[in-house]
């Protein structure tokens, strides 16, 4: 890895990098909880209960299993991108 390291992150020492990593893990953990709930929760484990609730012409459980979870997945990634870019700047580990 012959690339130069960011000056500030290094001078902040290990604490800055560790706080950045902790914030990152918290964010990822929260997003994966949502990821789990919409697909495994709503789409699989709770499908019978949710299928009693109509959403337009869909049954809600079926909707999450074949449409809804996919929309949420897309939203999760873009939310992650935005939050990580902010974290990168906040801890001064961003590129350029």
């Amino acid at each position, binding site marked *: 890895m012959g690339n*130069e390291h960011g000056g500030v992150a290094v001078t902040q020492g290990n604490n800055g990098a560790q706080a950045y990593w902790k914030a990152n893990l918290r964010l*990822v953990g929260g997003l994966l909880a949502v990821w789990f709930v919409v697909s495994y929760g709503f789409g699989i484990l709770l499908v019978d209960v949710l299928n009693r609730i109509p959403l*337009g012409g869909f049954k809600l459980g*079926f909707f999450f299993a074949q449409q809804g*979870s*996919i929309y949420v997945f*897309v939203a999760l990634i873009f939310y992650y991108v935005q939050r990580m870019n902010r974290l990168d700047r906040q801890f001064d580990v961003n590129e350029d």
Partner: protein
Amino acid sequence: MDTQTWIYLVVGSTFALYIGIAIWSRAASTRDFYVAGGHVNPVANGMATAADWMSAASFISMAGLIAFLGYNASPYLMGWTGGYVLLALLLAPYLRKFGKFTVPEFIGERFYSRTARLVAVFCLIVASITYVIGQMKGVGVAFGRFLEVEFETGVLVGMAIVFFYAVLGGMKGITYTQIAQYCVLIFAYTVPAIFISFQMTGNPVPQLGLGSHMVGSDVAFLDKLDQVVTELGFARYTEPTGARINTFMLTLSLMIGTAGLPHVIIRFFTVPNVADARRSAGWALVFIAILYTTAPAVGAMARMNLMDTIQPGPVGAVEGNLVYEDRPEWFRNWEKTGLLAFEDKNGDGRIQYYNDQNAAFAAKAQAYGWQGNEMVTVDRDIMVLANPEIANLPGWVIALVAAGGLAAALSTAAGLLLAISSAISHDLLKGTFMPQISERQELMAGRIAMAAAIVVAGYLGMNPPGFAAQVVALAFGLAASSIFPALMMGIFSLRVNRAGAVCGMLAGLTSTLLYIVAYKGWFFIPGTEWFPNTAEYWLLGIQPEAFGAVGAGINFAVAMVVSRLTAAPPAHIQALVEDIRVPRGAGAATGH
């Protein structure tokens, strides 16, 4: 213009386009060949990743699977998209920061072990070869049906096209052709879906049409479909059957497997930096989701069309069933291929299509004078291909579907072939056995490995081993149980060391392989399996295709325990892990 002329025109011009791109984007260095120079725009890479990922199976088979399984096909929809969340959050940014050319290279360096690298190469090659056979077969089938040439000729033409742009351009040529192929395949998939959704529900957006009412009635489309299929003894379309734990584990295995497939991961080495790798994963899923959210509408509407065609009147009334001699043109076309077959079991000249395995429905069927399901063959794969004909769409739409199927198969084949050739030239030759070769020699070796991989894939596509249809499960099982956990622990744990990683990968790999062999036999040869492949014999009711997640769990557990019992990784490895966790300094992907 007739349909056949349209097909030649559309398929011919897409092929000319791919060749044009190949000539324009020749690879000059190993960086070009492995990672397209490392400066692909993240949105463009997202599009290329979508084409790379969506194979003949996504384009042709998935909607058919949904049509016949209904809710029970959901693991494929959630699994093959949810994996991108794992990829974006857990792997892609860090592997991009690491900044090398191949997946085994990361595993080898992070676990400072040539053995780990070779195990990864083995998994990569087995997973990719099994996967590429199916693509080559898909090319042959699509050519056979639409261009009316021999299956072998179809595979040869496909090989020639891939050879041209993959050998010349490497990742660079593949990237730009994949972008073109994505445009072709998504247009081909959505246009017929829009027509059909509008015909059936009055709503041109298929995703919304699926949740709308039937044209001219106030019954929701899906409720109507549930009613139509249950009246003929089939299971409800929108509700689950089978063990919940199996659905759960299958979804999890497909997600982890997706995130661990090397030909997808290496696409994220082509973007300029870490932030772009994250963004690119998001765009990839957007482009994939366009097809994956359309597929449930295509599947449900195709099922409705099929049921309506065969059973136009009330169930039980004699005139309720279609007279065989009056069957529509598309029915006759597909009968010729053998993918659709009718047998007049009760000799009444009419077609009865119902679930004759349903004991509760048997008495009714007998009262109607039915003597078994007469649609003896309904191949799931014809659903997407026959859809435009069923809906009476013009010839150019059918031509588009042919070009789209070919684009899906070729783009995935090229991505897989690159993963294989880079593992051979970069990991095996340069990295392990002949480290002294120059860059020019390595580039040449990459091209030769690519050419050889194409020949092997083409040969296996023409002479598929009996197990070809089953092996995709193997590819996902291997990726899920060996590659994904190794990558994740390499990033998220400072403590997992060489011994832990190697033992973990081998434990995950062997347990998954053994479970598949136990129910499917050695090399999938019938008769060599140890247990019947049915639910009552499965461990906890988990089917072999769903075992990858268990294998991954075993991998994680073994790696953690073994690492605890042995020395921590050396300081420079821990520093490497700390370094890939922060984005700054990603710079260019480099082989040195």
